[in-house]
């Protein structure tokens, strides 16, 4: 264990530390931010009379809409900014767009350092050490995940190779085969794609990448059979992390037991409760769920300095597993590996957050379009694909105009939401219309992950 004082602490010690830190953080946000002072006062919340962490529940939950409204009122960072602007050293934006706006997070040096440390700590748990070759496949942008992955690797002292800009074949042939990595950071869908491409190129991962200690995955749920198959094919262990921008990095990470526990069941992701207070709430009752139940993850940053959040609703659906569930003995509560999902319609596609509303806005900006339907899948080569069928209002629109519009829209979607989509025309009147809850999107990736593994043959068959 890298930090025995934390990893071997009692639950009581952890909770005492949380309470101490929470008291300081509440005082900090109250004294530094008009936004929080107003919220505390409106709720009649006396932060300096905090008796236990549960007292936080006297405060209302904070939503994305609250943050966006605050940013509109006090652009660009909102009244929740707790530092002077000269202390901001990086800006993080929620990836993709919800169609209603992106949350902006001012990061101070401390925020960046602390976020990197959470990753470095997790890499260590995954078995990586100083000097190990680590390949990062996530593109660096204004979202927090890839930055944390890089900063953590730097802090650990890993020999880091950010290979996101290269195509998959180059990643395999030019970088992975040449440098023989000890670790790879990927999304589950991309790992499937790498696996299929290995087979097509005649690369046996077991033989070609003997140094591989860990494949680190995040952003998507996956079937446990897929995880088992991947561990066999790559002859290494899979480790999962769950993170989000609002947590400022890594919110939960698997431990040495990997994503599959000793019983062959789904493992645990340990919540980083030293840095954050987590609640898992029933969406109907607002009460904390019981062990084994699903609920919405709500978080309160204990250290974040620039744009801290207090009781933020993530809209992420997690299965709560109490401390003691995992055999590693760490005192932290957990969530189940491989099953984090969304309550809203947001989809994670190629590590980007995509809200259907954002796609709606771009598509229906064209008055010629009547309806559309989207489908996210994993193709036979393990690639994530987004297909969108477009139905035009008029059957009489000339072919040339339709083709041109689809081309234009394709570019707009790529720039607007950050993901390429394959557009095609649907027959007039063929697409479903919605009278109540609009469901224009279907996500078939889990089926795709399973199918790719069952249909792929050759080198990796056991």
């Amino acid at each position: 264990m890298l930090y025995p004082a934390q990893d071997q602490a009692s639950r009581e010690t952890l909770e005492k530390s949380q309470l101490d830190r929470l008291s300081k953080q509440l005082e900090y946000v109250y004294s530094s931010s008009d936004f929080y002072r107003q919220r505390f006062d409106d709720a009649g919340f006396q932060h300096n009379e905090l008796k236990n962490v549960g007292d936080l529940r006297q405060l209302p939950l904070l939503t994305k809409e609250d943050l966006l409204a605050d940013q509109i009122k006090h652009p660009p960072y909102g009244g929740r900014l707790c530092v002077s602007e000269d202390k901001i050293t990086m800006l993080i934006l929620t990836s993709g767009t919800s169609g209603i706006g992106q949350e902006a997070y001012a990061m101070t040096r401390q925020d960046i350092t602390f976020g990197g440390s959470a990753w470095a700590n997790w890499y260590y748990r995954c078995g990586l050490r100083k000097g190990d070759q680590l390949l990062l496949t996530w593109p660096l942008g204004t979202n927090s995940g890839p930055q944390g992955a890089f900063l953590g690797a730097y802090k650990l002292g890993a020999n880091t190779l950010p290979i996101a800009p290269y195509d998959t074949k180059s990643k395999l042939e030019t970088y992975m085969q040449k440098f023989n990595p000890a670790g790879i950071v990927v999304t589950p869908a991309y790992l499937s794609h790498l696996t299929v491409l290995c087979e097509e190129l005649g690369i046996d991962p077991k033989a070609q990448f003997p140094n591989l200690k860990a494949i680190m995955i995040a952003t998507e749920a996956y079937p446990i059979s897929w995880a088992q198959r991947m561990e066999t094919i790559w002859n290494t262990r899979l480790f999962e992390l769950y993170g989000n921008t609002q947590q400022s990095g890594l919110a939960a990470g698997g431990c040495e037991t990997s994503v599959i526990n000793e019983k062959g069941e789904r493992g645990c992701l340990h919540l980083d409760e030293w840095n954050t207070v987590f609640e898992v709430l029933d969406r109907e009752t607002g009460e904390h769920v019981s062990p084994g139940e699903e609920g919405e993850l709500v978080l309160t940053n204990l250290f974040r300095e620039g744009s801290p959040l207090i009781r933020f609703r993530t809209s992420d659906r997690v299965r709560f597993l109490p401390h003691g569930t995992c055999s590693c003995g760490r005192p932290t509560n957990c969530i189940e590996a491989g099953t984090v999902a969304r309550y809203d319609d947001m989809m994670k596609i190629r590590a980007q957050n995509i809200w259907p509303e954002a796609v709606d806005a771009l598509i229906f900006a064209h008055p010629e379009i009547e309806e559309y339907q989207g489908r996210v899948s994993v193709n036979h080569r393990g690639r994530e694909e987004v297909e969108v069928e477009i139905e035009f209002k008029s059957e009489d629109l000339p072919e040339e105009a339709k083709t041109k519009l689809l081309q234009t829209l394709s570019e707009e979607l790529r720039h607007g939401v950050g993901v390429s989509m394959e557009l095609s025309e649907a027959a007039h009147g063929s697409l479903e219309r919605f009278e109540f809850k609009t469901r224009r999107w279907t996500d078939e990736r889990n089926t795709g992950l399973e199918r790719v593994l069952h249909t792929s043959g050759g080198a990796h068959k056991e």
Partner: protein
Amino acid sequence: MTNAEIIKHLQEMLATAQGLASQRDPALEGDIQIILTILVDKLRYLDPTNEYAHQVEYE
């Protein structure tokens, strides 16, 4: 070296770095802030239940 000894050394380094940071020397400023955050960060991992200064308190 024991954990307690490491913490003691880190606290001494932190005090020294804080002294340098207070000089506001442009040649030091950016890097000394990075050093401060690293020291505070390391202390909170090694000594999670102790008192350690929040950055806003020592700037």
